[in-house]
């Protein structure tokens, strides 16, 4: 699994990784400014500096939002809302934690809000992928193009879609917090401590959430074994 760039940085922030610095530096070969200077510039009102910060992290933010929300329009809302919050509150960032942690605290809060709102409206549940009638459920042009790529193995695709559908259904059974913890741990590659920082809670609490989430999923997805 490819870890997101900020996951490396977050791990480094938490003292769990030291080997990814070089890679991180090369990936973040940003013009002339390190992150702290970029942040200071953005706090001083430099719009370009803020946009550079966004470009550094927004891919992972959108990925998290897509995985959690399952709908592009919802993910777009989360993306927009989260970064506008970051922009409006950037002056409050005091470098007491890493920017990644601070950013993900905002992103996860926005995601939690959206998930809770969605839970409160059963009619607004995310659509379940339907492997048998995939074409009917897909409205995204680019997704249709991707499915028609000749290199894709149809059998593998069908199996993957079926598993994905079952996982998606099982994930719906989780609480918003459990979903976020599971997502951040297994798909974003974050350490539990970093997830706790992002969610504003303890590592122990996150551990419990991950354990409950795994148990629930295993009960739902027993046939996957």
């Amino acid at each position: 699994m490819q870890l997101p760039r900020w996951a490396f940085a977050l791990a480094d922030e938490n003292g769990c990784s030291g080997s990814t610095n070089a890679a991180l530096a090369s990936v973040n070969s940003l013009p002339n400014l390190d992150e702290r200077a970029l942040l200071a510039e953005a706090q001083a009102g430099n719009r370009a500096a803020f946009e550079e910060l966004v470009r550094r992290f927004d891919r992972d933010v959108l990925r998290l939002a897509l995985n959690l929300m399952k709908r592009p329009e919802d993910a777009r809302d989360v993306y927009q809302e989260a970064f506008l919050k970051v922009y409006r509150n950037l002056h409050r960032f005091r470098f007491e934690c890493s920017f990644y942690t601070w950013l993900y605290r905002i992103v996860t809060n926005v995601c939690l809000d959206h998930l809770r709102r969605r839970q409160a409206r059963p009619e607004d549940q995310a659509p379940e992928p339907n492997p048998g009638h995939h074409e009917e459920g897909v409205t995204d042009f680019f997704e249709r193009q991707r499915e028609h790529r000749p290199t894709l193995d149809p059998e593998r695709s069908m199996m993957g879609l079926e598993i994905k559908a079952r996982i998606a259904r099982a994930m719906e059974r989780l609480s918003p917090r459990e979903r976020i913890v599971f997502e951040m741990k297994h798909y974003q590659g974050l350490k539990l401590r970093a997830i706790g920082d992002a969610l504003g809670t303890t590592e122990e609490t996150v551990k419990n959430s991950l354990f409950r989430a795994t148990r629930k999923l295993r009960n739902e997805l027993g046939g996957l074994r």
Partner: protein
Amino acid sequence: MSPFEKKMNCKDVAPLLVFYVCDEVCEDERKSIETHLTNCKACSEQLAEEKEFHSTLVSAPQAANELDASGILLSQCRSELEEALDDLHAPPLQEHWRPFGWLRRWMALRPVWSGALLVLVGVLAGTQVVPWLQQNPNTTGQAVRVRARQPLTPDQLSNMVVSGLTPSPGSDSLTVQLQVSAEQPMVLTGRVDDANMRQVLTYVVENSERFDAGVRLDCLDALKAAAGDQQVRAALLSAARKDQNPAVRLKALETLRDAAGEDDVRQTLLDALEHDSNPGVRVEAVNLLVNSLNGEAPGADTAQAPEGSVVAPTPAPGTQGDEEIDHVVKVLQELQRRDPSRYVRLRSAAALRQIGPREVQ
């Protein structure tokens, strides 16, 4: 390893396998787990299941991979965020301040309703606002209501325009309101016996060429109550002699009725008899003279006397000096003979009879 120890170890290890698989156990836990796994087949099998489950989950297609495989969504998100930031940075719309702009927009979109609304507003203004303004003339805010505490300066007096004088509502008859416009409109309110108020009233009376005759008449009416004051007396006498308007002169004489027996007033009355061009004023002067001589109201007896006949009345005994009475009689006789107005001649004859038979010198 006893079965009891193995069972305990399995209980301890089982919940940790979830975290062992995803590398979230500390070093001590890892060693304990690995030691236990080497001897426990059940836990090893459970670990294998856990790994498979974990692997299945992690390798399953992720929504993000499908929903934005091309990166188009990310581009859209970036673009939308830039627009939102532009909106945040955009200065507030620099429209000219347009009072009731919403109303104009509303009216532009609804011409029929707007027409009806305008008619309604016009009707309301005509039927409600105008009468209200008329009932509350002082609510227009154009005049300053002041008490006549300070005398007006000569400049103010010379520039003063008096638009009206009314008795002050709710006050005694001595209190009047004077609507004045000098440098700014004002309403003077005060008693006639107030020196400052008298100053304004006498100024109006004395400067007949500057003020409307109606205003002068009102001022004379107001000053009647203070006719005993020297300044007022002088103004009244001046008006009786010099005012160009006969009604004002007549009014001035009336205000002097109570003081007709005094020398300066009597002289003014005689002058009026001899020189005033208006027969009404001359008749009033005759009446006042008779009144002053007889101590009774003149005009009650206007018996006709033969025109041209000269009556030599006898002066009333005691109250007036002979010389004064003789002078009055002489003037009346002269008036009886020569006044161009027949009515004045008749009135003079009647007055001579009222004064009483007297031998003309």
